């Protein structure tokens, strides 16, 4: 086996049972500090699948190969942008994708910072935002997927981490 690949495999970090609560904590901290709003936990049910016309994604590469994503409605995204900017009235539409991308970036960074073996061995990509009326996110990852739904001002947001095995 290629020694470099061997080292890479040995350094791979596997998800454990704490990751879901760490992702929830990372998201809550970002919203508390940057949106001045508290996220509330939502009980997980089978019907509780991710929907919404706005998705922000950030890739993680290194000790883990994964995609962090946030999905919500455009109205929720607009409200988040308003909270970040401290706007009272309408938000400039061009700033909404920028805001939601930055939230995703901060949640990903905050999450990996909470896992010692990831913090120093994992890089984040530049975020990407998808907007549209009807699409399905299909992660070509054969590993675990951690999904944390949280309520922002009574509107659901789905925080997901899709991990390549």
């Amino acid at each position, binding site marked *: 086996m290629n020694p470099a690949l061997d080292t890479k495999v040995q350094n791979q970090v596997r998800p454990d049972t704490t990751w879901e609560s760490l992702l929830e904590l990372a998201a809550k*901290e*970002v919203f*508390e*500090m*940057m949106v001045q709003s508290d996220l509330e936990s939502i009980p997980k049910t089978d019907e509780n699948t991710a929907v919404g016309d706005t998705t922000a994604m950030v890739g993680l590469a290194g000790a883990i190969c994964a995609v962090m994503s946030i999905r919500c409605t455009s109205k929720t995204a607009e409200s988040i*942008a308003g909270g*970040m*900017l*401290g706007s009272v009235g309408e938000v400039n539409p061009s*700033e909404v994708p*920028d*805001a939601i*991308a*930055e939230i995703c*970036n*901060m949640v*990903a*960074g*905050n999450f*990996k*910072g909470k896992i010692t073996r*990831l*913090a*120093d*061995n*994992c*890089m*984040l990509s*530049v975020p990407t935002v998808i907007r549209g009326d009807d699409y399905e996110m299909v992660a070509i990852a054969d590993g675990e997927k951690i999904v944390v739904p949280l309520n922002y001002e009574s509107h659901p947001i789905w925080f997901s981490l899709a991990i390549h095995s």
Partner: protein
Amino acid sequence: MKRPRILIVDDSSVMRKIIERSLRQAGVELGDIVEAGNGIEALAAVKDGTFDLILSDINMPAMDGLEFLRQLATVESAKGTPVVMVTTEGSESRVVEALTIGAKGYIRKPFTPDQIKERVTPLLEVLR
């Protein structure tokens, strides 16, 4: 006290506005605020005028914050200008690299206005 002229470097325009708002919330009396979307734009701004403080992201397209710091060291008029990194980067090694190249400190995103104040105020004391 002279009102500080500050350069904010971040590829997110929303984040640049949040940093400016946080500085105001922290009670920093601001002079001119100049914004740049990456290291290349920031270098152009630095060559165009002097600043009392630079706040820069690390992960940016075109030229990242670490390369900006390296190139900033070669700009004579920017010598002595304090740079604080404002970043989501959780990697200690990249933060240490930034400090080694010449950054005076770092603020991790997400942040509170108090955290901004704690890092920035001592660096602006020289303007008193």
